[in-house]
């Protein structure tokens, strides 16, 4: 009866901003509420279609913005001639793209509800990580091309031109400091470095990106040929930066504080679910107004002396109740250990709900495929999804299985099936989630919706197997907590 939490700790994140939150579903405490674990499938709220945007729409908007940026460059560039002209022209175009790219990267992480609900925080974080590498590269390509191009145009050395740029050009020195900050943040986010850095360290160093963007802002208008004599361009560019800044302040600060004031989140109790696994019950008022769904997660900030300064994403590990939410966390880091010592009454700031890993309401049968700690959000969905449900639960050892009692009880009550696939690959003699095995565990697999949650490697392998078993891509829903 345990569930697991998303991994708080450093271990494998590729590195974007949302530490992979793995969301654990919350269920009302068994004893406290009159309802106990939900035995009967309950009708799922029809999915709110409004307020979600699809990945295609978002990518189209980002692309259109990039085209507009290139058009701005085109408009401000008379022509390109000679080596110096080519280098400078490329440097200017990349500089504009970088100035646009940082805004997009920040906007992706602004926790905008339509993005989080429509695309999912884990997918956004993957985009942010990929885009971040790209933008940092573009920033530096811009800097180097400009230095080189100006040096060629002025017939000076690259070293001399670097000194000239830093000392004579307005605000270039500040922008250079910003560029180094961005580079530093990019480096610690790379996979290899990421493993050695604590989550909190990584998170707080990431905040320097705001400083970097602020430092680099003014050199765009002071030195950029596209802006110096174009008031309209300066206006719209500023408006873009300002809009994203307002969204950040609103959704990352104002909204959580407002929710705290309205719902008064606080710890009700902590329960040891098994070795190294704890559930935390969080109470509050009017929680139904949150419209949280099984499969979603919140970012939690426990207001104790040692924990108030960082927030962590944990999935609800049971269907959200009217006055209580549950998260379940596996003991993987300092933070999750500290959770076990939480006292009832501790106040909590909760941001959310986040995540697009929710029931689609298609009315078809559903297969839930959990890997290890990935059971938590699926535990909540298992109790609440309508229609026939099959749960396949992959764990590498019996100790790693959490929530077994709850899962069995739910299965018995609703006539659903749970398959435990436990043991190492060697012990099981082959691929435990091969297309053949999957088809035999879940007959009619290719006609059903499949929800996969687990570590990144497991979800990728499982999706490959599901595709091979004939499940269409659009029927596969993935939540990966390591992103």
């Amino acid at each position: 009866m345990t569930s697991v939490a998303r991994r708080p700790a450093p271990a494998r994140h590729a590195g974007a901003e949302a530490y992979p939150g793995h969301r654990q579903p919350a269920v009302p405490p068994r004893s406290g509420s009159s309802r106990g674990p939900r035995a009967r499938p309950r009708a799922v709220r029809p999915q709110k279609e409004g307020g979600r945007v699809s990945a295609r729409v978002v990518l189209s908007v980002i692309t259109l913005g990039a085209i507009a940026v290139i058009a701005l460059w085109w408009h401000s560039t008379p022509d390109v001639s000679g080596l110096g002209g080519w280098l400078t022209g490329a440097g200017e175009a990349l500089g504009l793209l970088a100035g646009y790219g940082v805004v997009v990267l920040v906007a992706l992480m602004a926790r905008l509800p339509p993005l989080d609900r429509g695309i999912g925080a884990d997918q956004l974080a993957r985009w942010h990580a990929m885009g971040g590498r790209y933008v940092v590269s573009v920033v530096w390509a811009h800097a180097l091309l400009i230095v080189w191009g100006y040096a060629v145009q002025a017939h000076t050395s690259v070293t001399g031109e670097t000194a000239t740029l830093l000392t004579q050009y307005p605000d270039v020195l500040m922008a250079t400091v910003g560029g180094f900050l961005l580079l530093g943040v990019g480096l610690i986010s790379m996979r290899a470095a990421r493993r050695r850095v604590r989550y909190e360290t990584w998170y707080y160093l990431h905040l320097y990106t705001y400083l970097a963007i602020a430092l680099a802002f003014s050199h765009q208008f002071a030195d950029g040929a596209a802006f110096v004599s174009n008031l309209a361009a300066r206006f719209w560019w500023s408006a873009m930066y300002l809009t994203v800044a307002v969204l950040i302040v609103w959704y990352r600060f104002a909204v959580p504080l407002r929710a705290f004031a309205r719902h008064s989140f606080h710890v009700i109790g902590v329960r040891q679910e098994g070795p190294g696994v704890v559930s935390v019950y969080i109470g509050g008022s009017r929680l139904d107004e949150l419209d949280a769904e099984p499969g979603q997660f919140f970012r939690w900030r426990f207001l104790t002396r040692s924990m108030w300064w960082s927030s962590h994403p944990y999935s609800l590990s049971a269907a959200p109740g009217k006055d209580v939410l549950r998260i379940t966390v596996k003991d993987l880091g300092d933070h999750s250990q500290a959770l076990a010592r939480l006292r009832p009454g501790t106040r909590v700031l909760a941001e959310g709900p986040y995540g697009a890993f929710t029931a689609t309401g298609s009315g078809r049968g559903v297969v839930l495929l959990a890997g290890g700690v990935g059971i938590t959000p699926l535990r909540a969905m298992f109790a609440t999804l309508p229609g026939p449900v099959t749960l396949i639960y992959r764990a590498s050892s019996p100790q790693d299985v959490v929530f077994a009692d709850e899962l069995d009880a739910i299965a018995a009550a609703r006539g659903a099936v749970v398959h435990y696939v436990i043991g190492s690959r060697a012990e099981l003699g082959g691929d435990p989630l091969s297309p053949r095995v999957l088809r035999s565990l879940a007959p009619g697999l290719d006609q059903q919706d499949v929800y996969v949650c687990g570590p990144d490697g497991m979800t990728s392998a499982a999706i490959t197997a599901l595709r091979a078993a004939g499940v269409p891509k659009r029927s596969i829903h993935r939540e990966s907590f390591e992103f």
Partner: protein
Amino acid sequence: MRRVILTIVGTIAGLVALLSFKSHLPTVPSASVSNTGGSTSTGGSSTAGSSSTAGTSGTGGSPAPSSSAATVPGEFPMGSLAGKLPAGETAVTGHVATTVYGPVQIQLIMRNSKIVKVAVLQQPMNTANDIQIGEFAFPKLIGETLTAQTAKIDAVSGASYTSAGYIQSLQSALDNRA
């Protein structure tokens, strides 16, 4: 890894395509000369010839470009010299030549029908890079002018628009010399 390579290659290809479109445009820079500029202001004082006191008239036509520009570092005279000429020299101011980067206007200092100095009254100054290009280009252009004594001089590579504006303004000054 494949995606990384594709992204890099795609970005470079996109940039090259974009820039080559721009470089296929007519590459001869143009500068238009506006008659409203400083054309009428031949230096050397209203008393034509070349007599003693040099032209106070140089200030006449051109829109006071000099004073602020004087703070910009450069190896060439900036701003009108008309007010402080020794005897025997006259100032002749050229038209304002408009380039895509900004206006260019020069002033010739003549002695015995020879160009002895060239001052820059206006130059593109929108960005620090414009100024840096000017610092590099104008000394060369002025050197060529003093040697050639005509407007038939070569443009400076990397500063083709500025060169075109300079040559236009120079030509108009020479035309006004009479």
